[in-house]
Protein backbone atom coordinates (compact mmCIF):
# COMPACT_ATOMS: atom_id res chain seq x y z
CA UNK A 1 0.00 0.00 0.00
CA UNK A 2 1.60 3.15 -1.22
CA UNK A 3 -0.32 5.77 0.68
CA UNK A 4 0.37 4.55 4.24
CA UNK A 5 4.04 4.10 3.39
CA UNK A 6 4.17 7.62 2.06
CA UNK A 7 2.39 8.82 5.15
CA UNK A 8 4.88 7.05 7.40
CA UNK A 9 7.80 8.43 5.40
CA UNK A 10 6.41 11.95 5.52
CA UNK A 11 5.75 11.63 9.24
CA UNK A 12 9.26 10.30 9.82
CA UNK A 13 10.77 13.11 7.75
CA UNK A 14 8.83 15.75 9.65
CA UNK A 15 9.65 14.16 12.99
CA UNK A 16 13.35 13.96 12.17
CA UNK A 17 13.63 17.40 10.61
CA UNK A 18 13.86 19.26 13.90
CA UNK A 19 16.48 17.09 15.59
CA UNK A 20 18.52 16.81 12.38
CA UNK A 21 18.48 20.57 11.95
CA UNK A 22 19.54 20.94 15.58
CA UNK A 23 22.34 18.43 15.05
CA UNK A 24 23.49 20.35 11.99
CA UNK A 25 23.45 23.56 13.98
CA UNK A 26 25.45 22.00 16.81
CA UNK A 27 28.00 20.61 14.39
CA UNK A 28 28.29 23.86 12.48
CA UNK A 29 28.95 25.81 15.66
CA UNK A 30 31.52 23.37 17.01
CA UNK A 31 33.53 22.23 13.99
CA UNK A 32 36.96 23.82 14.04
CA UNK A 33 36.59 24.93 17.64
CA UNK A 34 36.78 21.59 19.44
CA UNK A 35 38.11 18.11 18.49
CA UNK A 36 35.74 15.83 16.51
CA UNK A 37 35.25 13.57 19.54
CA UNK A 38 33.89 16.50 21.50
CA UNK A 39 31.60 17.45 18.61
CA UNK A 40 30.19 13.93 18.59
CA UNK A 41 29.70 13.84 22.36
CA UNK A 42 28.02 17.24 22.45
CA UNK A 43 25.70 16.22 19.60
CA UNK A 44 24.53 13.23 21.61
CA UNK A 45 24.01 15.39 24.70
CA UNK A 46 22.22 18.06 22.66
CA UNK A 47 19.85 15.43 21.30
CA UNK A 48 19.14 14.17 24.81
CA UNK A 49 18.58 17.74 25.96
CA UNK A 50 16.11 18.40 23.14
CA UNK A 51 14.27 15.17 23.96
CA UNK A 52 13.93 16.26 27.58
CA UNK A 53 12.79 19.78 26.69
CA UNK A 54 16.07 21.36 27.72
CA UNK A 55 17.86 24.10 25.77
CA UNK A 56 20.92 22.85 23.86
CA UNK A 57 22.67 26.19 23.38
CA UNK A 58 24.27 26.24 26.85
CA UNK A 59 25.88 22.86 26.07
CA UNK A 60 27.36 24.15 22.82
CA UNK A 61 28.47 27.38 24.52
CA UNK A 62 30.28 25.41 27.23
CA UNK A 63 32.07 23.25 24.66
CA UNK A 64 33.16 26.35 22.72
CA UNK A 65 34.37 27.90 25.97
CA UNK A 66 36.42 24.81 26.78
CA UNK A 67 37.95 24.82 23.32
CA UNK A 68 38.83 28.50 23.59
CA UNK A 69 40.45 27.96 26.98
CA UNK A 70 42.54 25.07 25.68
CA UNK A 71 40.98 22.52 27.99
CA UNK A 72 41.56 18.81 27.36
CA UNK A 73 38.74 17.18 25.34
CA UNK A 74 37.65 14.78 28.09
CA UNK A 75 37.38 17.67 30.52
CA UNK A 76 35.33 19.68 28.04
CA UNK A 77 32.89 16.79 27.71
CA UNK A 78 32.75 16.46 31.50
CA UNK A 79 31.92 20.17 31.82
CA UNK A 80 29.24 19.89 29.15
CA UNK A 81 27.76 16.94 31.03
CA UNK A 82 27.78 19.02 34.18
CA UNK A 83 25.87 21.80 32.41
CA UNK A 84 23.41 19.20 31.15
CA UNK A 85 22.93 18.01 34.72
CA UNK A 86 22.36 21.56 35.96
CA UNK A 87 19.81 22.24 33.22
CA UNK A 88 18.00 19.00 34.02
CA UNK A 89 18.04 19.70 37.76
CA UNK A 90 16.85 23.24 37.12
CA UNK A 91 13.97 22.03 34.94
CA UNK A 92 12.95 19.56 37.63
CA UNK A 93 13.05 22.22 40.32
CA UNK A 94 11.12 24.69 38.16
CA UNK A 95 8.43 22.11 37.38
CA UNK A 96 8.09 21.50 41.11
CA UNK A 97 7.36 25.20 41.38
CA UNK A 98 4.19 24.72 39.36
CA UNK A 99 5.54 25.67 35.94
CA UNK A 100 4.52 22.63 33.92
CA UNK A 101 6.56 23.33 30.79
CA UNK A 102 9.36 25.80 31.54
CA UNK A 103 10.86 27.66 28.59
CA UNK A 104 14.55 27.59 27.77
CA UNK A 105 15.19 31.02 29.23
CA UNK A 106 13.77 30.03 32.61
CA UNK A 107 15.67 26.73 32.64
CA UNK A 108 18.94 28.54 31.84
CA UNK A 109 18.25 31.03 34.62
CA UNK A 110 17.55 28.16 37.02
CA UNK A 111 20.77 26.42 36.00
CA UNK A 112 22.64 29.67 36.61
CA UNK A 113 21.13 29.91 40.10
CA UNK A 114 22.21 26.31 40.82
CA UNK A 115 25.71 26.98 39.49
CA UNK A 116 25.90 30.05 41.69
CA UNK A 117 25.32 27.92 44.76
CA UNK A 118 21.58 27.63 45.26
CA UNK A 119 19.88 24.31 45.95
CA UNK A 120 17.01 22.76 43.98
CA UNK A 121 14.36 23.43 46.66
CA UNK A 122 15.43 27.07 46.76
CA UNK A 123 14.98 27.33 43.00
CA UNK A 124 11.53 25.79 43.41
CA UNK A 125 10.69 28.31 46.13
CA UNK A 126 11.83 31.22 43.94
CA UNK A 127 9.66 30.02 41.08
CA UNK A 128 6.66 29.81 43.43
CA UNK A 129 7.33 33.38 44.51
CA UNK A 130 7.47 34.59 40.90
CA UNK A 131 3.90 35.61 40.38
CA UNK A 132 3.02 38.29 37.84
CA UNK A 133 4.68 40.76 37.17
CA UNK A 134 7.87 38.95 38.21
CA UNK A 135 8.88 36.40 35.53
CA UNK A 136 10.57 33.31 37.02
CA UNK A 137 13.60 33.82 34.76
CA UNK A 138 14.15 37.32 36.16
CA UNK A 139 13.74 36.17 39.74
CA UNK A 140 16.16 33.28 39.24
CA UNK A 141 18.78 35.45 37.55
CA UNK A 142 18.62 38.03 40.30
CA UNK A 143 18.83 35.36 42.98
CA UNK A 144 21.73 33.63 41.22
CA UNK A 145 23.60 36.89 40.89
CA UNK A 146 23.08 37.75 44.55
CA UNK A 147 24.37 34.31 45.55
CA UNK A 148 27.33 34.65 43.19
CA UNK A 149 28.10 37.95 44.91
CA UNK A 150 28.39 36.11 48.21
CA UNK A 151 24.96 36.32 49.81
CA UNK A 152 24.12 33.00 51.52
CA UNK A 153 21.49 31.19 49.45
CA UNK A 154 18.79 31.07 52.19
CA UNK A 155 19.23 34.80 52.77
CA UNK A 156 18.94 35.40 49.02
CA UNK A 157 15.59 33.61 48.97
CA UNK A 158 14.38 35.69 51.92
CA UNK A 159 15.51 38.95 50.29
CA UNK A 160 13.71 38.10 47.06
CA UNK A 161 10.62 37.07 49.03
CA UNK A 162 10.64 40.36 50.94
CA UNK A 163 11.03 42.32 47.72
CA UNK A 164 8.18 40.58 45.94
CA UNK A 165 5.77 40.31 48.85
CA UNK A 166 6.20 43.94 49.82
CA UNK A 167 4.88 44.85 46.39
CA UNK A 168 8.00 46.51 45.04
CA UNK A 169 8.29 46.86 41.28
CA UNK A 170 10.05 44.50 38.90
CA UNK A 171 12.70 47.18 38.41
CA UNK A 172 13.34 47.14 42.17
CA UNK A 173 13.88 43.40 42.00
CA UNK A 174 16.30 43.66 39.09
CA UNK A 175 18.19 46.46 40.83
CA UNK A 176 19.01 44.35 43.90
CA UNK A 177 22.44 43.08 42.69
CA UNK A 178 23.64 46.59 41.81
CA UNK A 179 22.47 47.92 45.17
CA UNK A 180 24.16 45.04 46.95
CA UNK A 181 27.43 45.65 45.08
CA UNK A 182 27.25 49.31 45.99
CA UNK A 183 26.96 48.47 49.69
CA UNK A 184 29.69 45.84 49.52
CA UNK A 185 31.98 48.34 47.81
CA UNK A 186 31.45 50.63 50.79
CA UNK A 187 32.66 47.98 53.17
CA UNK A 188 29.64 45.88 54.13
CA UNK A 189 29.80 42.09 53.87
CA UNK A 190 27.39 40.54 51.33
CA UNK A 191 25.22 39.21 54.18
CA UNK A 192 25.13 42.61 55.89
CA UNK A 193 24.33 44.34 52.61
CA UNK A 194 21.52 41.87 51.89
CA UNK A 195 20.11 42.35 55.39
CA UNK A 196 20.06 46.10 54.80
CA UNK A 197 18.30 45.68 51.47
CA UNK A 198 15.64 43.51 53.07
CA UNK A 199 14.44 46.54 55.01
CA UNK A 200 11.94 48.21 52.65
CA UNK A 201 13.13 51.77 53.26
CA UNK A 202 16.74 50.84 52.60
CA UNK A 203 15.98 48.81 49.50
CA UNK A 204 14.02 51.61 47.87
CA UNK A 205 16.85 54.06 48.43
CA UNK A 206 16.47 57.76 49.05
CA UNK A 207 13.75 59.55 47.20
CA UNK A 208 14.83 62.54 45.10
CA UNK A 209 15.73 65.45 47.30
CA UNK A 210 15.75 63.30 50.43
CA UNK A 211 19.24 61.87 50.52
CA UNK A 212 20.12 59.54 53.35
CA UNK A 213 23.04 60.41 55.58
CA UNK A 214 26.27 58.58 54.82
CA UNK A 215 26.72 55.55 57.05
CA UNK A 216 30.42 56.06 57.42
CA UNK A 217 31.61 53.12 55.36
CA UNK A 218 35.24 53.32 54.26
CA UNK A 219 35.91 54.55 50.71
CA UNK A 220 35.03 52.23 47.88
CA UNK A 221 37.70 49.86 46.63
CA UNK A 222 36.98 49.53 42.90
CA UNK A 223 39.25 46.50 42.61
CA UNK A 224 36.93 44.35 44.69
CA UNK A 225 33.40 43.32 43.81
Amino acid at each position, binding site marked *: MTTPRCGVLVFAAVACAGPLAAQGDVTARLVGRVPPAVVAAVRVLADSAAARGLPADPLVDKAI*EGGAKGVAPERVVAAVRMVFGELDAAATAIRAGRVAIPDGETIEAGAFALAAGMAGPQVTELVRLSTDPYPPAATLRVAG*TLTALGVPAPQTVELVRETIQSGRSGADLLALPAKLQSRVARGASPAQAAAGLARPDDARGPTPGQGKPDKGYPPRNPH*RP
Partner: protein
Amino acid sequence: MRAYDPLVKQLLDGELTLAELPPELQAEGSEALRLLAAVDRRAVMLPETLDARVMDALRTRARTVSLTRRSLGWITEPWELRLRVRPWALGAALAAAAALVLVLRGPGGTISKQGPAATASALPESLLVRFVLYAPGAKQVGLAGTFNQWNQSATPLVRAGSDGVWTVTLTLPAGQHQYGFVVDGRRWVTDPAAPAVDDGFGRRNSVIAVGGTVRAGRVL
Protein backbone atom coordinates in the same frame (compact mmCIF):
# COMPACT_ATOMS: atom_id res chain seq x y z
CA MET B 1 56.44 46.28 33.06
CA ARG B 2 55.82 46.46 36.77
CA ALA B 3 55.17 43.55 39.12
CA TYR B 4 53.66 44.41 42.46
CA ASP B 5 54.58 42.64 45.64
CA PRO B 6 51.97 39.97 46.57
CA LEU B 7 51.15 41.91 49.73
CA VAL B 8 50.37 44.98 47.62
CA LYS B 9 48.11 42.85 45.46
CA GLN B 10 46.31 41.77 48.63
CA LEU B 11 45.95 45.44 49.51
CA LEU B 12 44.41 46.10 46.09
CA ASP B 13 42.06 43.19 46.63
CA GLY B 14 40.92 44.69 49.91
CA GLU B 15 42.34 41.84 51.94
CA LEU B 16 44.80 44.08 53.73
CA THR B 17 44.79 47.70 54.78
CA LEU B 18 47.61 50.09 54.06
CA ALA B 19 48.53 50.12 57.74
CA GLU B 20 49.00 46.35 57.70
CA LEU B 21 51.67 46.51 55.01
CA PRO B 22 55.32 46.35 56.08
CA PRO B 23 56.86 49.84 56.19
CA GLU B 24 59.03 49.21 53.12
CA LEU B 25 55.92 48.41 51.03
CA GLN B 26 53.73 51.27 52.19
CA ALA B 27 54.98 53.70 49.54
CA GLU B 28 54.35 51.13 46.81
CA GLY B 29 50.93 50.39 48.30
CA SER B 30 50.00 54.07 48.44
CA GLU B 31 51.02 54.52 44.81
CA ALA B 32 48.99 51.49 43.74
CA LEU B 33 45.92 52.80 45.58
CA ARG B 34 46.40 56.21 44.02
CA LEU B 35 46.48 54.69 40.54
CA LEU B 36 43.31 52.72 41.26
CA ALA B 37 41.55 55.78 42.56
CA ALA B 38 42.52 57.62 39.39
CA VAL B 39 40.65 55.18 37.17
CA ASP B 40 37.93 56.99 35.31
CA ARG B 41 34.76 55.01 36.01
CA ARG B 42 32.29 57.48 34.73
CA ALA B 43 29.71 56.41 32.19
CA VAL B 44 30.69 56.93 28.57
CA MET B 45 29.12 60.19 27.41
CA LEU B 46 28.94 60.86 23.71
CA PRO B 47 29.51 64.51 22.73
CA GLU B 48 26.38 66.44 21.89
CA THR B 49 27.80 67.43 18.53
CA LEU B 50 28.31 63.82 17.48
CA ASP B 51 25.02 63.58 15.58
CA ALA B 52 25.79 66.70 13.57
CA ARG B 53 29.30 65.54 12.75
CA VAL B 54 28.12 62.09 11.66
CA MET B 55 25.42 63.58 9.44
CA ASP B 56 27.95 65.99 7.89
CA ALA B 57 30.27 63.09 7.15
CA LEU B 58 27.43 61.12 5.57
CA ARG B 59 26.40 64.05 3.37
CA THR B 60 29.98 64.55 2.23
CA ARG B 61 30.29 60.87 1.41
CA ALA B 62 26.99 60.88 -0.45
CA ARG B 63 28.19 63.72 -2.68
CA THR B 64 31.33 61.77 -3.64
CA VAL B 65 29.58 58.52 -4.57
CA SER B 66 29.45 57.76 -8.31
CA LEU B 67 26.26 58.03 -10.31
CA THR B 68 26.23 54.28 -10.98
CA ARG B 69 26.48 53.45 -7.32
CA ARG B 70 23.80 55.97 -6.46
CA SER B 71 21.53 54.42 -9.08
CA LEU B 72 22.14 50.96 -7.66
CA GLY B 73 21.55 52.28 -4.18
CA TRP B 74 18.25 53.80 -5.32
CA ILE B 75 17.15 50.33 -6.33
CA THR B 76 18.55 48.30 -3.45
CA GLU B 77 18.36 50.52 -0.41
CA PRO B 78 15.25 50.59 1.75
CA TRP B 79 12.90 53.54 1.39
CA GLU B 80 11.36 55.50 4.14
CA LEU B 81 7.58 55.52 3.87
CA ARG B 82 5.57 58.05 5.79
CA LEU B 83 1.90 57.29 6.27
CA ARG B 84 -0.57 59.71 7.75
CA VAL B 85 -3.71 57.99 9.05
CA ARG B 86 -6.79 60.15 8.90
CA PRO B 87 -9.72 59.29 11.20
CA TRP B 88 -12.18 58.84 8.38
CA ALA B 89 -9.82 56.39 6.69
CA LEU B 90 -9.27 54.27 9.76
CA GLY B 91 -12.55 52.38 9.44
CA ALA B 92 -11.92 51.64 5.79
CA ALA B 93 -8.38 50.48 6.54
CA LEU B 94 -9.60 48.13 9.26
CA ALA B 95 -12.20 46.70 6.91
CA ALA B 96 -9.57 46.20 4.24
CA ALA B 97 -7.24 44.52 6.73
CA ALA B 98 -10.02 42.20 7.87
CA ALA B 99 -10.77 41.32 4.27
CA LEU B 100 -7.10 40.63 3.59
CA VAL B 101 -6.94 38.33 6.60
CA LEU B 102 -9.97 36.41 5.38
CA VAL B 103 -8.49 36.07 1.89
CA LEU B 104 -5.13 34.88 3.23
CA ARG B 105 -6.70 32.37 5.60
CA GLY B 106 -8.95 30.92 2.97
CA PRO B 107 -10.90 27.84 3.89
CA GLY B 108 -8.85 26.23 6.66
CA GLY B 109 -5.75 28.20 5.71
CA THR B 110 -3.15 29.58 8.09
CA ILE B 111 -1.24 32.79 8.43
CA SER B 112 2.48 33.01 9.03
CA LYS B 113 3.34 33.94 12.59
CA GLN B 114 6.19 36.15 11.42
CA GLY B 115 4.26 39.32 12.09
CA PRO B 116 5.26 42.52 13.83
CA ALA B 117 5.63 40.73 17.18
CA ALA B 118 8.28 38.42 15.76
CA THR B 119 10.06 41.37 14.18
CA ALA B 120 10.11 43.20 17.47
CA SER B 121 11.44 40.22 19.36
CA ALA B 122 14.17 39.81 16.76
CA LEU B 123 15.47 43.24 17.69
CA PRO B 124 16.76 42.66 21.20
CA GLU B 125 17.44 45.57 23.44
CA SER B 126 21.16 46.16 23.76
CA LEU B 127 23.32 48.47 25.78
CA LEU B 128 26.80 49.92 25.68
CA VAL B 129 28.91 48.26 28.34
CA ARG B 130 32.34 49.41 29.41
CA PHE B 131 34.83 46.83 30.68
CA VAL B 132 37.86 47.95 32.66
CA LEU B 133 40.83 45.92 33.92
CA TYR B 134 43.81 47.10 35.91
CA ALA B 135 46.74 45.09 34.54
CA PRO B 136 49.90 47.19 34.80
CA GLY B 137 52.27 44.52 33.52
CA ALA B 138 50.22 43.37 30.55
CA LYS B 139 51.29 43.71 26.93
CA GLN B 140 47.84 42.91 25.58
CA VAL B 141 44.43 42.21 27.06
CA GLY B 142 41.43 40.62 25.35
CA LEU B 143 37.82 40.16 26.37
CA ALA B 144 36.26 36.76 25.66
CA GLY B 145 32.82 35.56 26.57
CA THR B 146 29.55 34.07 25.50
CA PHE B 147 28.88 37.19 23.41
CA ASN B 148 31.87 36.60 21.09
CA GLN B 149 32.08 32.80 21.13
CA TRP B 150 34.92 33.03 23.65
CA ASN B 151 37.22 34.41 20.96
CA GLN B 152 40.21 35.93 22.75
CA SER B 153 41.21 38.17 19.89
CA ALA B 154 37.76 39.39 18.87
CA THR B 155 37.51 42.14 21.48
CA PRO B 156 40.88 43.61 22.45
CA LEU B 157 41.11 46.14 25.25
CA VAL B 158 43.14 49.30 24.77
CA ARG B 159 45.35 51.07 27.26
CA ALA B 160 43.71 54.04 28.93
CA GLY B 161 46.79 56.13 29.63
CA SER B 162 50.02 54.77 31.01
CA ASP B 163 48.83 53.59 34.43
CA GLY B 164 48.06 49.99 33.51
CA VAL B 165 44.34 50.49 33.01
CA TRP B 166 42.84 48.70 30.02
CA THR B 167 39.36 49.33 28.73
CA VAL B 168 36.90 48.52 25.98
CA THR B 169 33.31 49.57 25.36
CA LEU B 170 31.00 47.38 23.33
CA THR B 171 27.35 46.83 22.64
CA LEU B 172 25.89 43.75 24.28
CA PRO B 173 22.43 42.32 23.71
CA ALA B 174 20.10 42.12 26.68
CA GLY B 175 20.48 39.04 28.80
CA GLN B 176 23.07 37.38 30.93
CA HIS B 177 26.62 36.92 29.69
CA GLN B 178 29.68 35.15 31.09
CA TYR B 179 33.15 36.41 30.27
CA GLY B 180 36.76 36.74 31.30
CA PHE B 181 39.80 38.84 30.44
CA VAL B 182 42.75 37.19 28.69
CA VAL B 183 46.05 38.79 29.61
CA ASP B 184 48.92 38.36 27.16
CA GLY B 185 47.04 35.67 25.30
CA ARG B 186 47.38 33.04 28.00
CA ARG B 187 46.24 34.15 31.46
CA TRP B 188 42.49 34.19 32.16
CA VAL B 189 41.47 36.79 34.70
CA THR B 190 38.04 37.38 36.21
CA ASP B 191 36.60 40.86 36.41
CA PRO B 192 37.14 42.00 40.01
CA ALA B 193 34.10 44.26 39.74
CA ALA B 194 31.60 41.55 38.78
CA PRO B 195 30.10 38.42 40.32
CA ALA B 196 31.66 35.15 39.22
CA VAL B 197 30.61 31.52 38.92
CA ASP B 198 32.50 28.25 38.50
CA ASP B 199 33.33 27.67 34.83
CA GLY B 200 33.51 23.89 35.13
CA PHE B 201 37.18 23.90 34.15
CA GLY B 202 38.66 24.83 37.49
CA ARG B 203 38.42 28.56 36.97
CA ARG B 204 35.68 31.15 37.33
CA ASN B 205 33.72 33.22 34.83
CA SER B 206 32.55 36.74 35.49
CA VAL B 207 28.86 37.38 34.94
CA ILE B 208 27.11 40.45 33.63
CA ALA B 209 23.38 41.00 33.20
CA VAL B 210 22.57 43.50 30.48
CA GLY B 211 19.27 45.30 30.54
CA GLY B 212 17.14 45.99 33.53
CA THR B 213 13.47 46.12 32.81
CA VAL B 214 10.73 43.57 33.16
CA ARG B 215 8.36 44.07 30.28
CA ALA B 216 5.42 41.96 29.31
CA GLY B 217 6.76 38.92 31.07
CA ARG B 218 10.18 39.01 29.44
CA VAL B 219 13.49 39.90 30.91
CA LEU B 220 15.23 42.48 28.78
